[in-house]
C-alpha cells in the first residue's frame, strides 16, 4: 500500500496506458470483452482520483503528492509530478469523463480495439498535462494527446472528417510551435525545466537575453505561450478549428474534446502563463479581456446562427470558455486582490462545469443522431411526445449549460462576472449580451427539437433513450445539480489553491 500511496499520480497517469497495452493483446473479435475491459480499466483512475481527493489536504501550501525522478538529466528535465487544488479538479473531471465517454462508445462496432486503445492513450495524455510540474514534461503530454484525438476524428468521425482532423492537428501543432520555441529558450536561459524553480528564476531575470532587453524577450515568449493556449481554449479569433473538429468527431470524442481538451488551454494559462509572466500578463490583460469578450459574444451569436445541432453545441463551447478566459484576464490585471480571487474561482469552477455540461450536451446530440441520422434542427420537431425521458434530460442539461440558477453553470458564471465587474466593467457588461444570447440559442435548439408540431416522419422510428445512455448522463446530471445547490465542496478546494497562488 505504501507504493500506491506514494505513487498515486503515476498510477492514475499510466493505468490507462497499461490498459491500452493489455488491450493490444486481446483478440480482435472479442468486442464485448474489449469494451468491458476498457471501461473497467478507465474506472481504476477514477477510483484512484477519488482516493486522491479524499487524501488531498486543501489547507496545505504548495504542490501535493509530488514525485520526482530523473528523466532527461542532460537538459535538466525530470519526471516531476504534483497537484494543487486546480489540477485536482481537472484530474477528477478527466477521470470522470473518460469512463463515461467509453460507456457512450459501446455502440461503436468498427475496429473497437483500436478505438478503445486510442481513447485510453488519450486519457494519459490529458492527465499528464494536469499533473506535470516540469515544463518539458508538460509539453510532452500537451502534444502527445493530439495523436489519439487526430485518429479518433480521422477514423471514426463524420463525413467531413479528413478536413476536420487535418485542420485540428495542424492548427494545434502550429500553435504549439511558439510554445516549443519559448520552452527551449526558457530552458536555455534558466537552466531548468522544473516549474517550481522556474517560478522563482524566470520571473526575476532582468539582464538582456540574446542582445535584446529581457522585457521584450519575455513579452514575445508570453505571446508564444498565449497563442498556443488560446488556440486550444479556443479564444476568438483562433477558434475556427473547433466547430469543424467537434462536429466531425465521434460522439465520445466530442465529449472529451469539449469536456477536457479545451480545459488544457485554460489550465495552461493558470499553471504557466500567470505564474511565469505576471508582469506581461498584467500588461496585456486588457487585450485578453477583449478577446474573451469577443469569444463570448461571437460564440453565442455563432451558435444561434446554426441549424446543425452539433455545430450549435460546438459554438456554445466558445461562448462558455470565453468566461474562463475573462476571469483569467481579470485576475492577471488585478492579481492579489479579492476580485481576482473571486474571478479565478469562477474561472476554474467554470472549467469544471463546462466539462460536465459540454460533455453532456455532446452526448445528447449523439443519442439523437444515432437514432435519426441527422443533425439538422429543422428535421426534428415536437419530439417531446415521442421521447419524454430524453426530452427531460435534454432540457435539464441545456438549462445547466445556460446558467439557470440552482444548476452548476450559474454559480461559476456568476463568480466570474462578480469578480470581473469591478476590474473590466465594460467587457463584463458586453459579455452580458453574450449571456443573453446563450439563452436564445439554447431555447432555439430546445424549441426546434422538442416542441412545435410533431414531425410525423419520426413516429415509430424514434426509440427512447436506453438504460446504458441514461447511465452515461446520470452522473453528469447529479453533479450539475450537486454543484448548483451546494458548490462549497469543490469551491473550497479551488479557492484555497487560487488564493495561494494569486
Amino acid at each position: 500500500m505504501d507504493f500506491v500511496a506514494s505513487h498515486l499520480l503515476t498510477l492514475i497517469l499510466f493505468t490507462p496506458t497499461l490498459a491500452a497495452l493489455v488491450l493490444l493483446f486481446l483478440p480482435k473479435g472479442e468486442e464485448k470483452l474489449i469494451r468491458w475491459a476498457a471501461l473497467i480499466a478507465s474506472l481504476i483512475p477514477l477510483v484512484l482520483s477519488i482516493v486522491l481527493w479524499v487524501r488531498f489536504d486543501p489547507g496545505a501550501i504548495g504542490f501535493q503528492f509530488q514525485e520526482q525522478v530523473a528523466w532527461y538529466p542532460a537538459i535538466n528535465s525530470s519526471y516531476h509530478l504534483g497537484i494543487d487544488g486546480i489540477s485536482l479538479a481537472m484530474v477528477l473531471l478527466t477521470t470522470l469523463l473518460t469512463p463515461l465517454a467509453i460507456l457512450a462508445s459501446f455502440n461503436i462496432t468498427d475496429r473497437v480495439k483500436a478505438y478503445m486503445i486510442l481513447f485510453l492513450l488519450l486519457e494519459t495524455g490529458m492527465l499528464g498535462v494536469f499533473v506535470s510540474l516540469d515544463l518539458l514534461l508538460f509539453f510532452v503530454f500537451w502534444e502527445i494527446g493530439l495523436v489519439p484525438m487526430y485518429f479518433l476524428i480521422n477514423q471514426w468521425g463524420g463525413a467531413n472528417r479528413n478536413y476536420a482532423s487535418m485542420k485540428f492537428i495542424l492548427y494545434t501543432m502550429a500553435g504549439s510551435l511558439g510554445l516549443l520555441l519559448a520552452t527551449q529558450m526558457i530552458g536555455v536561459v534558466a537552466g531548468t525545466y522544473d516549474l517550481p524553480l522556474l517560478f522563482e528564476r524566470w520571473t526575476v531575470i532582468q539582464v538582456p537575453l540574446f542582445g535584446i532587453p529581457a522585457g521584450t524577450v519575455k513579452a514575445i515568449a508570453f505571446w508564444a505561450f498565449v497563442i498556443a493556449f488560446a488556440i486550444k481554449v479556443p479564444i476568438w479569433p483562433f477558434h475556427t478549428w473547433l466547430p469543424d473538429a467537434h462536429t466531425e468527431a465521434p460522439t465520445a470524442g466530442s465529449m472529451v474534446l469539449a469536456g477536457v481538451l479545451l480545459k488544457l488551454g485554460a489550465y495552461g494559462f493558470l499553471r504557466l502563463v500567470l505564474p511565469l509572466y505576471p508582469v506581461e500578463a498584467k500588461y496585456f490583460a486588457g487585450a485578453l479581456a477583449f478577446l474573451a469578450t469577443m469569444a463570448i459574444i461571437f460564440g453565442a451569436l455563432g451558435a444561434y446562427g446554426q441549424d446543425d445541432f452539433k455545430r450549435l453545441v460546438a459554438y456554445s463551447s466558445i461562448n462558455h470558455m470565453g468566461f474562463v478566459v475573462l476571469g483569467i484576464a481579470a485576475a492577471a490585471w488585478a492579481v492579489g486582490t479579492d476580485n481576482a480571487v473571486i474571478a479565478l474561482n469562477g474561472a476554474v469552477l467554470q472549467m469544471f462545469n463546462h466539462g460536465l455540461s459540454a460533455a453532456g450536451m455532446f452526448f445528447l446530440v449523439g443519442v439523437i443522431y444515432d437514432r435519426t441520422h441527422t443533425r439538422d434542427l429543422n428535421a426534428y420537431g415536437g419530439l417531446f411526445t415521442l421521447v419524454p425521458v430524453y426530452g427531460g434530460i435534454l432540457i435539464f442539461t441545456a438549462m445547466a449549460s445556460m446558467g439557470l440558477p440552482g444548476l452548476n453553470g450559474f454559480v461559476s458564471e456568476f463568480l466570474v462576472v462578480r469578480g470581473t465587474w469591478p476590474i473590466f466593467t465594460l467587457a463584463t457588461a458586453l459579455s452580458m449580451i453574450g449571456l443573453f444570447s446563450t439563452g436564445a440559442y439554447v431555447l432555439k435548439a430546445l424549441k426546434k427539437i422538442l416542441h412545435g408540431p410533431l414531425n410525423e416522419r419520426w413516429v415509430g422510428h424514434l426509440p427512447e433513450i436506453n438504460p446504458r445512455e441514461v447511465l452515461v448522463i446520470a452522473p453528469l446530471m447529479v453533479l450539475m445539480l450537486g454543484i448548483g445547490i451546494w458548490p462549497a465542496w469543490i469551491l473550497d478546494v479551488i479557492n484555497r489553491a487560487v488564493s495561494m497562488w494569486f
Partner: protein
Amino acid sequence: MQFPLLSVIIFIPLVAGVLILFLPADRKTEVRVIALAASVVTLLLSIWAYISYNIDAGGYQFVERVEWLPSLGISYFVGVDGISLPLVLLAGIVVFCGVLVSWGIDDRPREFFAFMMFLATSVFGVFASLDLFALFFFFEIAVFPKYLMIVTWGSPKTREYGGMKLTLYLFIGSVIALVGALAMYFASGLHTFDMIALENAGFSMEFQRFWFPFVFFGFAVLGGIFPFHSWAPDGHVAAPTAISMLLAGVEMKVGAFAALRVAIMLLPEGARQWAWLILILATVNVVYGAFIALIQTDFKYVIGFSSVSHMGLVMLGFAAVAAAGQNARNGLIGAGMQMFSHGVMTALFFAIVGMVYDRTHTRDISRLGGLYRRMPWAAIGFIIGGLVSMGMPGFSGFVAEFPIFMGLWQAAPSYAIIAILGVIITAGYIFRVVGKVFFGELCPEYETLADITPLDKVAVGLLSLAMIALGILPNLMVPLVSSGVDRVLALLGGA
C-alpha cells in the same frame, strides 16, 4: 589478448559476403541464411559493445591497432567512443532489418546479399576508424556495392541516372575531402594518419580556415547538405529497398559522422570560422527539404526529401557547437541522438515504402489508398515513423531534436526560429501521406493484397520499438552520447 570485438563486427559481413559469392548461384536459401546469420551476429555483437562500453571511463574503447604501412604512418587503428558507438549499433540494426525485408529478392540473390554485406563492412569500418587513411579506405569501398546494387536491382526507370548521379556526387565529394586530408597529413609534419595524434597537431589558424570547407563539405555531400543534396532523393528512390534503407539510414550518417570526426574535430578553429555557413545551409536543408517533400507525388520521393530535411538538423547541431562550443553542448548531444533516431526512422520508412511497392507496383500517392485494411502492420509502422519524423514527444525524434534546438538557442536563436518551421511542414507531409496511402478509400484492385510477411513484421517491430524506447527513456543513449560530446568539446577548447 583482448577479444577483437570491433574487427569481428567489421569483418564478419566481409567474410560472409565472400562466402556467399563462392556458393553456386542457385543455392538461394543458403545465400539468405548466411547473410541473415552474419547480420544477426554483427547485431548481437554491436549490442554487446553498446552495453559493455564503460561510460564513466569515456574516450575510445575496444581499441585495436596494427601497423599496416609504417613507413607512411598508416595503421589499421579502430576504436569507438560515445558518438560512434550508437552509429555502430544503428548499422547493426539497419543491416539486420535490411536482410529481413530483402528475403524475397529472387533476382540474383547471391550477388545482392554479397554486395550488401560488403556495404555493411564499409559502414562499420568508417564508424570505427581512428586512422584517417583507414577511414577513407572504408569510405570508398562502399562505392562499388552501392553503384552496382542501384543499377542492377534498382527501379528500372531511373536506376542508371540515379546510380550514376549518386556515385559521381559522392565520389567528387570524397576526393575533395581526401585532398584536405592529405593537406593535413603533410602540414602536421607528424607523418601519421592517426587521427588522435592529428587532433594535437596544432594546425595554424590560416591552414584551418582554408582547408576546413574542403574536408567538411566533401564529407557533408554524403550527409546530404544543401545545395549538394540532390543525389539523395534520386539515389534513394532509384535504389532497391534494402539499399535505400542503408543509404538513407546509415550512409548519410557516415557522411555526417566523417564531417564531424575529420573536419570539426581535427580543424576546430576552421569549424568556428565557417559555422555561419553551415548554419545557413543546414537551415535551408531543414525547411526547404520539408517543403519539397510536401509537394511530391511519388511516395518514395517524400521520404527521400524528408531525409534531406532531417539531416539538416544534424548539421545544425554540429554548427551550433562549432559556433558556441561548451554553451551549445546540447546541440551536439541532439545531433548524435538525431543521427541514430533518423537512421532507424528512415530505414523503417523505406522498408515500408518497399513493402507497399512490392504489392501495388506503384509509388504514385494518388493511386494508393486504404492500405491500412490490407497491411495494418505497415500502416502502424509508418505512422510511428511519421510521429518520430515530426518530432512528436514520446518518440525518439523529440528527444533528439529538442536538444539541437537548445544548442541553437545558444549559438544562433534566429536560426532556431526559422528551423522550427520544418516541424509543422513535416507534420503536413506525413499526415498527407498517411491519409492518402493508408487511409481513405481502398482501391478495388488492392482488395486482395497480401499482408506483410512475418519477417517484415520483425523488422517493422524492431525499428518501431527502438524509437519508442528511446523516446520514453532518452537515458538509454544520452549518457553515452554525452561522454563522446565532451571529447569533441575538449578539442573545440577555449570556445
